[in-house]
């Protein structure tokens, strides 16, 4: 069966620097795969290759079995992308932002459907008609997640999705991501939050200097052991 996301011996060289060096992994349907790494490990670059913003120098990335470089539009249509510090338009309300971005994706949603998505991310009703420039970071992130929900894509790419969120918001977010995966969505998230990754992910990959140096999987219905991953992460960082 074809994996929704697959990196095959992915190499990425930018301005003479090797950013990714032979990275291979897959993310299966309904799975949450977290790429864990420090600053400059190549996490965000990995996401950007799946979106076709960066061309691999070697190897390839596939979305639903099709090479991204051969059909970027198909890859992007299958993916909802939540960048770090998702910056929607500050001069527009949540409704207007969602309406705009959904239209941009070639989709449309009724106000009830938008409200349902905003309910799922727990964005207060009174905030929905306010401009986003008055939102907290968490509220902006929730609006962006609502967009990802409304797009109903089979794949979700998350770049440091809990960065800057308060603990309650992080827990809510993790619950939401798990729900999405249970619904069949494939989630690839990159983060440097060991605890968060272990809480939410079915598998965790450790990235260091562009190489995948370790992998951990949840087994027998148990979450990945945070201490084990943290120890490996700290060890690898120290190397």
């Amino acid at each position, binding site marked *: 069966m074809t994996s929704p996301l697959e990196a095959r011996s992915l190499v990425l060289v930018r301005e003479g620097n090797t950013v990714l060096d032979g990275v291979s992994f897959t993310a299966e349907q309904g799975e949450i795969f977290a790429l864990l790494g420090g600053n400059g490990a190549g996490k965000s670059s990995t996401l950007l290759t799946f979106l076709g913003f960066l061309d691999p120098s070697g190897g390839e990335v596939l979305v639903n079995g099709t090479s991204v470089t051969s059909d970027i539009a198909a890859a992007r249509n299958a*993916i909802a*992308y939540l960048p770090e510090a998702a*910056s929607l*338009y500050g*001069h527009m309300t949540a409704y207007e932002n969602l309406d*705009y971005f959904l239209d*941009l*994706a070639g989709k449309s949603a009724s106000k009830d459907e938008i409200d349902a998505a905003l309910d799922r991310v727990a964005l207060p009703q009174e905030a929905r008609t306010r401009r986003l420039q008055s939102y907290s970071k968490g509220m902006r992130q929730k609006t*962006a997640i609502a967009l990802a929900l409304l797009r109903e894509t089979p794949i979700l790419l998350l770049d440091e999705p809990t960065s800057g969120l308060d603990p309650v918001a992080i827990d809510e977010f993790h619950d939401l991501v798990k729900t999405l995966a249970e619904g069949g969505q494939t989630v690839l998230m990159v983060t440097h939050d060991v605890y968060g990754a272990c809480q939410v992910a079915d598998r965790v990959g450790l990235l260091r200097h562009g190489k995948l140096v370790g992998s951990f999987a949840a087994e027998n219905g148990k979450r990945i052991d945070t201490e084990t991953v943290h120890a490996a992460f700290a060890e690898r960082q120290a190397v």
Partner: protein
Amino acid sequence: MVRNLIRETRFLAKDRGAIFWLFLAFLLSVVAVSFGVAEVREQRETIAALLEEDAADRANALEGQEDWGSAAYYAFHLTYAPPSDFAFAAMGQRDSSPWKHRVRMLALEGQIHEADTRNADFGLVGRFDFAFLAASVAPLLLILLLYDLRASERTMRRHDLLVATAGSPRSLWLPRALVRVAALALLLLIPLWIGTLIEGAAMGLALQATAIMVGSLLIWWLIVDLVSRVDASPSILLTSLIGLWLALAIVIPAVSKAAIEAGNPVPDGGEILLLQRETVNDAWDLPKEATMEPFVERHPELADHTEIEEGFEWKWYYAFQQVGDQVTEPLVEEYRDVRLARDRQAGTASLLSPMSMVERAFEQLAETDARSMIAYEDRVRDYHADLRAFYYPLMFPEEPYDSELLDDLPSYTPAS
């Protein structure tokens, strides 16, 4: 595509910065067209008032005259180039070249060129008309609307989300820019179309003007798009584009104008005026043969009537006036030819500057270009020649004065 355009139109409606520039564009267009319409009306009113005075003044001057020489001497004739119905859009050379004269049977070239420095200030700084707006201001507004389409999204870290959501960059940037270009074109052109209706100009002219305007905006859109693809900050992009605008709007036209003028030296109207006046003044002190011989060369049919018996005779007076014109002919021809050559070269040089090209195109449509003004001068010369052709056969054979014959006095007809 329609869906993308509707989405980006709604998006534009929420962008206060863009709305400000678009409103400013509309306001400037209204002002430019209003100024143009007001100026054209004033010129038409001036012509109408002068025409009324001209007929009355001439009737008054001719009343009580007893010979052809006096009648020709005292009667002035108004010549003029009325503004075209589209002149409101481009006043062009009408600000630097005279478009009305009061001529009489004296030496002509001095009469034409004594007025050539009128409106010199406008000739230098230019007028805020629609042609200037379309050629120079519209590209600047377009730059302000488009320069940071991509860069501002990169700065706000929204670029990747937008492109990833859109799937293809074309379905985002193309409609976003197109809506802005179309809105700018529309807001600039609506006042022009209304001006065209008010002035009763042919809709074909409005269509051509629209094509010129849209073509210019498309060229600038291409320029802005190419520059803004560079991964640089909005301020660097804006600085680069303004620099390019300055080069194309000011530096290249100024340098090419200076080069063309240096390469095509031209006698100014003052030289022609001076030479003619000196020739005419000198004639008073020269033997009459010195005047009549060159005159007869030009008018052999009057050879039997050129004997001057008294100290002053009108036919001698008019002969040396004409000889004054004959002496300046090479200078006048050179002046005319060089102006046309400069105009041709300026046309070629305008290929380097979209602004110059647009301004020249508008002046051609409005018939306010250099060629139109030279054509008017030629028309004045033709009319003056008609006056001479009327008076000479009466004056030189010394036909008895008959005021009723003045009913056949040629009247000036402007170009239709």
